C-alpha cells in the first residue's frame, strides 16, 4: 500500500498526488469492510440490535447490566450499529465508488493514461485489491458469471448497439459476418485441435484432455471480446472501417460462441459427437442468431411504438428505451439464443424512431445514461477480472499456457489473412495488408471468455483451462493493448476523421444516394443501392407512419438532421456564452400545445430561437446588413461580460450569416440602399414575424401563431410591427 502511495505521489504534481491518495484510502476502507463483514457474524450473539459499541452514556451501563441480568427489559438504544442490514448495497456501492475513483485517478495522471490503456490499469488495480484482500486471509469476491452476464454486460452492449454506426456496418456486413462466423469457427477448431495434439504429445498432467474438452476450450478462448475491443479501440481513434470490422466481428461472433460452447459442453459429458449432432449444431447456429435478431427486432418495434405516445410523460421516456432493450436481452437468454445480437438489433431498430419521438432532453438523458452505465460496467468488469485472477484456484502448466497463447496468435493471424484474401475478391474497397494486420492484432480476448470458462462445470481440467484463459486475456489486453497505439502510429494507419456534423456532407450523402440509384437504373441493374433505396422507401411509407408520432413521421431526413444540428450549435453557443439575455430554447419537438402547427412553422420557430441566441450578443453599431433580414437587431448589452475573443467570434458569425443569406451577387441592384435597416437603440429582444411570409404576400400571416414558449419575455407589439414594416421595406423580394 505504501508503495502504491509513493508511486502516485512521485508521478504527478502535488495536487494530483493528493487526489491519488484517496483511492488507496478507499482501498483500505474496502478491505477493512470486507474483513469486518466477514467477522461480524462471529461476534454477533443473535440479532444486530444488541451491538452497542458507540454508546457512552448511562444507557450502556444499564444495558449491560440488563444483559448481564439476562432477559430483562431492553432500554432504547440511542445509537446502534447494524451493518448486516445494509451490507450488500453498501458493498456494491463501495465497489462502484472505488472503481470510479480509480478511473478519476488515472485521468489525473496524464502521462500514464496516454501510454497504457485504461483497461490495463484497471486490471492492475483489481490485482492489487485482490491481493490485499487475500493478504487479510479473506475470500475475495470472484466475478460471478451470473452477475457478469445479467448485470455487467448488457449496458456495454446496449451502448454499443444504440450508437452503432449503421451505414458502415451495413456496407461491410458481408466481411463482418465472414470474419465473425468463419473466423471464429476456424479459431476454435484450430486452437482446440492443436491443443489436443500438444496434450497428446506432452503427456503427463495434460494427458487427461480429450478432444472434446480441448475443442470446448478452443471455442471459449477464440472469441474476440467486445468489451476489451471497445476499451482499447476507443482510445486509439482508428478509422471507421477498421473499427467497425473488429467491433462488428466481436458482436456477431456471440452466436457462434454460444452454439459452440453449448454443443461442446453437452457432448463433453456425453463423450462423443456424431455427424447428426454436428448438423444439429449448424441448425442451432441459425436458430440462435436469427432468433436473437428477431426477438431484438420485435422488442425494438415495440419500444418505438410505445415512444410514440409518450408526449405527455416525457420524464419516463428514457426508461422505455432501457427497459425494452433489457427485456430483449433477457428474453433471448431464456431460450439460449444470442442475447448480444438481440440487444444490438433492438438498439439499432429502436434508435431512429425513438429519436424522432422523444424530446431533446430525453435524448440527452438516454445518451448520458447509456454512456454512464457502460462506463461503470466496463470499469467493474476489469477490476473484477483482476480480483478474480488473484482469488481463483490456479493450475499453472508452462507448456499448456505458452502453447495456448502462441496458438491463439497464430490462428488469429492466419484466419484474418485467409479470410481477407477471400473477401477481397468481392469487395470494392479492398483490405490492405495494413488493415489486415490491425484487424488481426485487434482481436482481444476479455471477460466473456473468462466467465464462460468459469461456468464450466465439474471439469477436471477446469482450473488448467481457467489459468490458460486468464493468461491469454492478460496477454492480449496488456501486450496487444499497450502496443497497438504505437503500432498504429508507426504504420500510419488512417485515423478517424474529425466528425463534425456537416450539413453539406449530409446533403451530398443523400444526393449521392439518389444519384447512384439513378445511375443504376440507367444501367439497368438492381444493385446494392437499389435495394437500399427500396428499403428506405418502404420505411418511409409504412413503418414511419406507425412508429413516429405526429407530423414528424413525414419529415424528411435532411430536415431532421438540419434541425438537430442547428439546435446543437445553438445550445453550444448558449453554453459557452452565458449572460442575461440569452434565451434558452425549449424542447424542439412537437409542442403538445400546438399539435396542428405546420411543419414550416416548427422549423421557423426553431430557427428564430436559434438566430436570436446567435445574435443576442452582437454589437450592432449601425451595422449595415445586406440581408433580407431574418435577424434581430440588438445592441450588445454586455460588453463587460463577454470576453473579447468570444465577442469577436460571434460578431463575425453574425456578419457572415448576414452575408450569405443574401440574394446572390448577380443581381444588378446595389444592395445597401435597399437593405439598410434602422438601428434600435434600446436593449430589447425582438421576435420576428412568424416566418418569411412577410416577403411572400401570398402566405402573409401575422404573428399570433407563436407559442409562448418561443416568445421572449419583453416584447412589444408596436416594435414588432415596426420591425415587420421595416423588413418588408428592406426585402428585395423572393428569389
Amino acid at each position, binding site marked *: 500500500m505504501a508503495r502504491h502511495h509513493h508511486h502516485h505521489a512521485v508521478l504527478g504534481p502535488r495536487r494530483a498526488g493528493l487526489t491519488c491518495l484517496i483511492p488507496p484510502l478507499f482501498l483500505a476502507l474496502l478491505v477493512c469492510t470486507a474483513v469486518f463483514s466477514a467477522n461480524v457474524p462471529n461476534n454477533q450473539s443473535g440479532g444486530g440490535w444488541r451491538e452497542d459499541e458507540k454508546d457512552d452514556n448511562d444507557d450502556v451501563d444499564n444495558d449491560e447490566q440488563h444483559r448481564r441480568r439476562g432477559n430483562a427489559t431492553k432500554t432504547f438504544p440511542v445509537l446502534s450499529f447494524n451493518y448486516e442490514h445494509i451490507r450488500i448495497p453498501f458493498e456494491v456501492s463501495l465497489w462502484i465508488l472505488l472503481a470510479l475513483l480509480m478511473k478519476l485517478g488515472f485521468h489525473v495522471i496524464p502521462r500514464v493514461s496516454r501510454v497504457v490503456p485504461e483497461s490495463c490499469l484497471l486490471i492492475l488495480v483489481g490485482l492489487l485489491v485482490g491481493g490485499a484482500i487475500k493478504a487479510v486471509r479473506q475470500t475475495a469476491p470472484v466475478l460471478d458469471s451470473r452477475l457478469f452476464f445479467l448485470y455487467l454486460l448488457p449496458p456495454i452492449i446496449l451502448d454499443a448497439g444504440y450508437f452503432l454506426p449503421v451505414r458502415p456496418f451495413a456496407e461491410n456486413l458481408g466481411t463482418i459476418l465472414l470474419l465473425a462466423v468463419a473466423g471464429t469457427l476456424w479459431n476454435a477448431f484450430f486452437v482446440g485441435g492443436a491443443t489436443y495434439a500438444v496434450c497428446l504429445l506432452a503427456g503427463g498432467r495434460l494427458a487427461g484432455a480429450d478432444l472434446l474438452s480441448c475443442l470446448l476450450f478452443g471455442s471459449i478462448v477464440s472469441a474476440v471480446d467486445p468489451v476489451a475491443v471497445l476499451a482499447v479501440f476507443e482510445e486509439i481513434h482508428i478509422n471507421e472501417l477498421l473499427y467497425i470490422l473488429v467491433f462488428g466481428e466481436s458482436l456477431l461472433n456471440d452466436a457462434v460462441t454460444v452454439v459452440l460452447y453449448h454443443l461442446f459442453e453437452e457432448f463433453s459429458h456425453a463423450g462423443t459427437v456424431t455427424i447428426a449432432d454436428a448438423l444439429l449444431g449448424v441448425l442451432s447456429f441459425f436458430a440462435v442468431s436469427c432468433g436473437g435478431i428477431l426477438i431484438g427486432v420485435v422488442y425494438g418495434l415495440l419500444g418505438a411504438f410505445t415512444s410514440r405516445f409518450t408526449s405527455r410523460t416525457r420524464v419516463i421516456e428514457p426508461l422505455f428505451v432501457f427497459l425494452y432493450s433489457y427485456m430483449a436481452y433477457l428474453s433471448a437468454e431464456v431460450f439460449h439464443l444470442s442475447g448480444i445480437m438481440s440487444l444490438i438489433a433492438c438498439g439499432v431498430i429502436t434508435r431512429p424512431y425513438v429519436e424522432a419521438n422523444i424530446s431533446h432532453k430525453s435524448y440527452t438523458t438516454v445518451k448520458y445514461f447509456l454512456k454512464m452505465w457502460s462506463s461503470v460496467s466496463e470499469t467493474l468488469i476489469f477490476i473484477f477480472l483482476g480480483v478474480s485472477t488473484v482469488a481463483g484456484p490456479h493450475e499453472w502448466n508452462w507448456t499448456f499456457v505458452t502453447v495456448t497463447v502462441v496458438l491463439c496468435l497464430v490462428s488469429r493471424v492466419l484466419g484474418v489473412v485467409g479470410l481477407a484474401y477471400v473477401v*477481397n475478391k468481392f469487395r*470494392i*474497397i479492398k483490405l490492405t495488408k495494413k488493415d489486415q494486420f490491425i484487424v488481426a492484432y485487434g482481436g482481444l480476448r476479455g471477460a466473456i471468455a473468462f466467465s464462460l470458462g468459469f461456468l464450466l462445470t465439474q471439469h477436471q481440467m477446469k482450473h488448467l483451462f481457467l489459468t490458460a484463459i486468464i493468461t491469454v486475456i492478460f496477454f492480449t489486453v496488456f501486450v496487444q493493448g499497450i502496443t497497438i497505439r504505437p503500432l498504429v502510429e508507426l504504420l500510419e494507419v488512417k485515423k478517424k*476523421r474529425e466528425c463534425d456534423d*456537416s*450539413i*453539406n*456532407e449530409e*446533403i*451530398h450523402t*443523400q*444526393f*449521392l444516394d*439518389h*444519384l*447512384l*440509384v*439513378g*445511375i*443504376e*437504373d*440507367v*444501367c*439497368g*441493374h*438492381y*444493385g446494392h*443501392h*437499389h435495394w437500399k433505396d427500396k428499403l428506405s*422507401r418502404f420505411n*418511409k411509407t409504412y413503418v414511419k407512419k406507425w412508429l413516429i408520432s405526429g407530423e414528424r413521421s*413525414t*419529415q*424528411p431526413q*435532411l*430536415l431532421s438532421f*438540419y434541425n438537430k*444540428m*442547428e439546435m446543437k450549435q445553438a445550445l453550444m453557443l448558449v453554453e459557452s456564452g452565458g449572460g442575461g439575455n440569452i434565451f434558452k430554447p425549449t424542447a424542439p419537438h412537437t409542442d403538445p400545445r400546438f399539435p396542428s402547427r405546420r*411543419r*414550416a412553422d416548427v*422549423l*421557423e420557430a426553431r430557427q428564430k430561437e436559434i438566430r436570436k441566441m446567435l445574435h443576442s450578443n452582437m454589437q450592432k453599431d449601425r451595422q449595415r446588413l*445586406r440581408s433580407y433580414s431574418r435577424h434581430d437587431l440588438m445592441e450588445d448589452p454586455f460588453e463587460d461580460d463577454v470576453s473579447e475573443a468570444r465577442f469577436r467570434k460571434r460578431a*463575425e*458569425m453574425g*456578419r*457572415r*450569416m448576414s*452575408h*450569405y*443569406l*443574401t*440574394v*446572390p*451577387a*448577380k443581381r444588378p441592384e446595389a444592395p445597401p440602399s435597399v437593405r439598410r435597416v434602422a438601428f434600435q437603440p434600446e436593449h430589447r429582444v425582438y421576435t420576428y414575424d412568424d416566418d*418569411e411570409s412577410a416577403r*411572400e404576400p401570398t402566405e402573409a400571416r401575422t404573428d399570433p401563431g407563436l407559442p409562448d414558449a418561443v416568445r421572449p419575455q419583453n416584447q412589444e407589439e408596436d416594435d414588432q410591427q415596426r420591425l415587420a414594416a421595416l423588413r418588408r421595406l428592406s426585402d428585395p423580394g423572393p*428569389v
Partner: protein
Amino acid sequence: MREGRTKGGTWRRGCVSCPSIRAPKVPLAFSGGAMGSWQARPEQQHYYHQLAQKTGFSAEQIKNLHHRFRELSANGETISRAHLESIPTLAKNPIKKQIIDAFFDKRNQQEGESGRLEELDLGHFLMVMSHFRPPRHKSGEDERCAVRRQKLRFLFNMHDTDNDGTITLVEYRKVVEELLSKSGAIGHEAAKAIADAAMLEVASTNVPHMAPDEFYEGITFEHFEQILNGLEMESRMHIRFLDVDTSTVRCGKAGSTSTP
C-alpha cells in the same frame, strides 16, 4: 462504314491491337436500324478498344454497357432524352432531371467543351458512366486524388447549372429543393434554410476571415472539394459494373429486344 457480313471466328485475325477481347460467342453482326448498315467486326473491336482506353472500362464491361445502350435506345444509334425519361424506375427519383441533364452535359465529356448535347452515342454514354467506376485496388495517392477530383467535378457540374464556375446560393437552393421535393410538401422555406446554412458552412470553413464588406459569391470548385473532403468520394461514388446482367432486366419498352 465498310460492309462486311461474316460470322464466326474469322474476325479475330484482323484485329491485332486488341488481344484481350475474346471471340464473341454470338455472331455479332448487329443492325444499325432501318438503314441496315453493318459494322465490320474488327472495326467494332477497334472502336471498343479506343473506348476502353478513353474511359478505362474493360472490354467485357463495354460490351455489357453497349448491350444496355441498345436496349435504351431501342436499337438505335443514339439515345435521346425521351429514352432516358421513359425508364420507369427513374421516375421516383427526386433528382431525375439533374441526372438526365448530367448525361447530356458536354462538360462531362472531358473534352473541354460546354453546352448541351442533343443525343448520346455510345462514346458519350460510356464517358458519363466512367465517372462511376470503382477505384482500382493498387492505385497510388495521386491517382486517387485525380479520381476523386473527377468525380467531384461531375457533382459540381450537376449543381452548377449555368456554368459560371461557382455554385451560387440560388443554384444550391434548387439542389436542396429537388432533394426534398419527393418527401412531401415541405415548403420553400425549409429548403432555403438548409441551403443557407450549408452555404454558411462552406464559407466559414473556406474563407474564415472575411472582412465586413466582403461578399461570398458562391462555392468554387476548390471550396467544393474542400468541404466534401471527408466523404472520400473515390470510395463512395461508384457502382458495380462487373455483373451488369442486362438480359434479365426489362427496361420498360414493350417487346424490345436486341436483334442478334
